[in-house]
């Protein structure tokens, strides 16, 4: 007889809440055909409940750690964990979802009856990624990854009246499924080499035994990193990003990009830093190589973009490289802090794009930003601060984030990587500055100021976070420092 694993409700409570919320949105929509505002309340309540349950988990995790009892943080026979790392990442995901939906609300509302679909898909995607960051097992991780990714493919194609949106969805789907396949193959090879799916199991095995023929494991790690590298748009797996960012509905791109990056990097960090920490000598050069390639390609290609969304996509590639330096550095707090900061800034930046491009998100060429500083000073000011924050200017949180990961990488003996990274940061400044030049230093014709809807709340929060955590980073840094994986 098979004994079913003991069910630990609290371990999956936030995910469950979001899944139920998604179903609820669809049911309410079918039953009452309410105004979008009502669905907004439902989704808001869902996210609030999920966040609240995550806080409960946090308290439990802190108690368990204080008692030295990490075993109780693992549930479902080791499939799921409730460690600080998972909880912190989940918080970031929920925050990005809330902000992302607010930023894209005008688009969602404009979809009419299909709006409920969009909301449900967003909630499902977050559920999947939230499971992914909490999974302690490669198969579980893959399940979360697929749930999240498939929802994102559909979201990218939601504005199906526009050809670019369809193209984005198809491209994202085809390349994304290929990446998932690569990931699964990597998992299979790791299993072949170690006989384990569990992250902790792999770590114990590698710590206790010398693997006589580790080549299979090495290839497996390489494929897993490649598959996840696709999700976080690290070079050379980034080719989908510009087209998807350009084609997907403007309001939702920020969400789509942010959650994929957070979940992808959380998974990379957990797999490499926990499961394969003993093989670091093998994967460090590879990850450092990906990091350099991403930083250089991303920054240089962003310089020549004439479209703000493509520019942000390439800057995202560069950011993937910067976060990779944190993986090289091997400290999870630097990575988590960076992810939290970047996710918020990214959603904020795309909220601006959504305002400028309009709800359905037609064009976003740099030309449309000409003279924005005069047309809508507040919007342009917010965008400037967010761009400078992404660039990593001191006094913004982006600088603290960069500083953290660079310091970790230097301490690990990768001085050259840090030097490449700081130079790439300067190149990155050059293209952020380009946008600012267009907004402020060229005069616009007499144009009406843009109408800013609920995006204003997203912008206020994102700008506030960028500056406050730039000046007083300790509140978030302390949390990130506590959020260790088991």
């Amino acid at each position, binding site marked *: 007889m098979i004994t079913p694993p003991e069910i630990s409700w609290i371990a999956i409570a936030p995910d469950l809440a979001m899944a139920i919320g998604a179903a609820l949105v669809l049911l309410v929509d079918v039953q009452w055909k309410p105004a979008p505002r009502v669905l907004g309340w439902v989704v808001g309540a869902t996210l609030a409940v999920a966040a609240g349950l995550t806080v409960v988990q946090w308290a439990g995790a802190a108690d368990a750690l204080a008692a030295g009892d990490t075993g109780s943080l693992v549930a479902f026979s080791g499939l799921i964990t409730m460690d600080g790392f998972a909880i912190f990442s989940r918080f970031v995901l929920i925050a990005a979802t809330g902000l992302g939906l607010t930023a894209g609300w005008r688009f969602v509302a404009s979809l009419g009856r299909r709006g409920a679909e969009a909301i449900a898909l967003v909630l499902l995607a977050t559920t999947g990624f939230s499971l992914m960051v909490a999974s302690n097992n490669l198969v579980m991780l893959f399940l979360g990854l697929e749930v999240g990714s498939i929802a994102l493919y559909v979201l990218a194609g939601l504005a199906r009246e526009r050809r670019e949106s369809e193209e984005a969805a198809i491209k994202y789907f085809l390349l994304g499924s290929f990446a998932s396949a690569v990931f699964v193959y990597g998992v299979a090879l790791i299993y072949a080499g170690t006989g384990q799916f569990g992250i902790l199991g792999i770590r114990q095995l590698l710590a206790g035994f010398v693997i006589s023929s580790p080549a299979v494991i090495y290839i497996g790690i390489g494929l897993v990193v490649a598959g996840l590298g696709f999700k976080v748009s690290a070079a050379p797996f980034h080719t989908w990003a510009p087209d998807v960012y350009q084609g997907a509905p403007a309001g939702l791109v920020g969400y789509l990009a942010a959650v994929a990056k957070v979940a992808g990097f959380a998974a990379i960090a957990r797999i490499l830093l926990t499961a394969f920490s003993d093989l670091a000598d093998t994967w460090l050069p590879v990850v450092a190589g990906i990091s350099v390639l991403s930083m250089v390609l991303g920054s240089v290609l962003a310089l020549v973009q004439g479209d703000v969304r493509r520019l942000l996509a390439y800057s995202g590639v560069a950011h993937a490289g910067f976060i990779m330096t944190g993986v090289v550095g091997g400290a999870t707090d630097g990575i988590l802090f960076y992810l939290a900061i970047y996710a918020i800034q990214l959603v904020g930046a795309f909220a601006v794009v959504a305002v400028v491009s309009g709800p359905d998100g037609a064009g976003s060429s740099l030309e449309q930003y000409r003279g924005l500083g005069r047309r809508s000073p507040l919007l342009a000011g917010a965008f400037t601060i967010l761009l*400078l924050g992404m660039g990593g*200017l*001191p*006094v913004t949180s982006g*600088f603290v984030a960069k*500083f953290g990961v*660079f*310091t970790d990488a*230097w*301490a690990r003996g990768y*001085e050259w990587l*840090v*030097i490449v990274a*700081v*130079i790439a*940061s*300067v190149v990155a*400044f*050059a293209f952020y*500055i380009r946008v600012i*030049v267009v907004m*402020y*230093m060229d005069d616009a014709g007499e144009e009406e100021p843009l109408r800013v809807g609920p995006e204003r709340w997203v912008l206020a929060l994102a700008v506030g976070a960028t500056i406050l955590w730039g000046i007083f*980073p*300790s509140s978030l*840094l302390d949390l990130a*420092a506590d959020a260790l994986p088991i």
Partner: protein
Amino acid sequence: MLTSLVLLPVAAAIVVMLIPGRRKEIHLPLSIALSVMPLALAGYLFWVFEPAAGFQYVDRVPWYEPWGIDWYLGVDGISLPMIVLTTLLVPIALAASTTITNRTKEFVIYTLLLEAGMIGAFLALDLFLFFVFFEAMLIPMYFIIGIWGTERRVYAAVKFFIYTAFGSALMLAAIIGLALTYASQEGSASFALSDLAGLDLAVGTERIFFAAFAIAFAIKVPLFPFHTWLPDAHVEAPTAGSVLLAAVLLKLGTYGLLRFNLALFPDASVDAIPIMAILAVIGIIYGAVVAIVQPDLKKLVAYSSVSHLGFIVLGTFALTSGGLQGAVIQNVNHGLTTGALFLLVGMIYDRRHTKKISDFGGLQKTVPLLAGFFLFMTFASIGLPGLNGFVGEFLVLIGSYPALPSLTVIAAFGVVLAAIYLLWAYERVFTGVPDKEENSVLSDLSGREIALLVPIAVLIVVIGLYPKLLLDKITPSTEAVLDNIVEQTDFTIPEPGRIGDVFVAGGE
């Protein structure tokens, strides 16, 4: 007290921000009034500052303890004059900006934030904090050049930004490296200058770190061959931008070399003397020669900066009492005279809307007061005895001679060349008969403009006649820099390079 000095301009900026944009007429007067407060505080600080080595009025609060970052401010004889200079020139630069009618509010806010950044950078004793200020002030300056500049402003602004950001990126890497070396040697994290200065670094590492810092500051100074951004930035910037850029921002480079390079990397500094001194002398001569042939008055003053700042670097790396004192004094002098020259060029430009020397001639007749002030500033810049420039250049040259005799002799020609380019420019612009009609109908300086120039002129005379006022405050700190180098390296200060060897500064 120092914290409030940094925060006062920020507070002023916030106050201005709260005034509605349509009340255009009060933004500028209000900001001038507000920016007098930091000046008053800085003046008080100068008054109560005890001439002694070491940092005074230290404010130290942990910022993020696990990384060892502190909000750590302190003032010594090297930074004190710079603080006073900064706080003095900001109100003057603002008051000189009445011609800016477009987006005054933003302009004022950027200028005040720039002031906060500059003060912070001069006071910071924590390398992380210093870097934050050093980098953060780029943005306001970038906007000031890019929005209110002349035709090629965007190009100049971007060039300025990228050059400086590149330099500071390397410095950031070096700061990270230093802090981690400290952490591995001492077991605790710190970015404090005093902690990091005591590190034992391998020779190679120390030289690399020195180079990273030196390049960042050399771009800022700017030292030949990193100077190419400067003429563009100066020429395109509005008057206030040029004044603050020349008078204060460039000084961060020379200040940084003196404060950070000499203190953090004494061995590498001693080894780098020939390189830095030769670059400085090339800058002195090259800047002067290029200035002679400039057709544009503003560009001429810009290149004269390259030449004058060469003296400061030469004095710094001579590593003698006179050299260092001269460097600090010359920091102030150049800020005053070049700041004033840029103001004057701006005033001429406001009247004639051209900066080309060939468009002028005989202005003396129509605007005698302006001509008089210009001649006065020219004399100060050339180093006429009795004015401030003489004190600074004399100290630098007399201080450098024992250490680097041949280079000092070459550098001395820079003084002669300065006389050529400035007096020749004066001759072409102001003397003769006004043969162009537009030049004969100009109005002379207004009361406001005179009020801007008089404080600078008074300081120039005071420093020129009674340098003890400044030297007393400076000397203990510069001597401490030398003592530190003697202590940490086997370098011997060339005789007669120390105070008391040859002449007694400060009139003891």
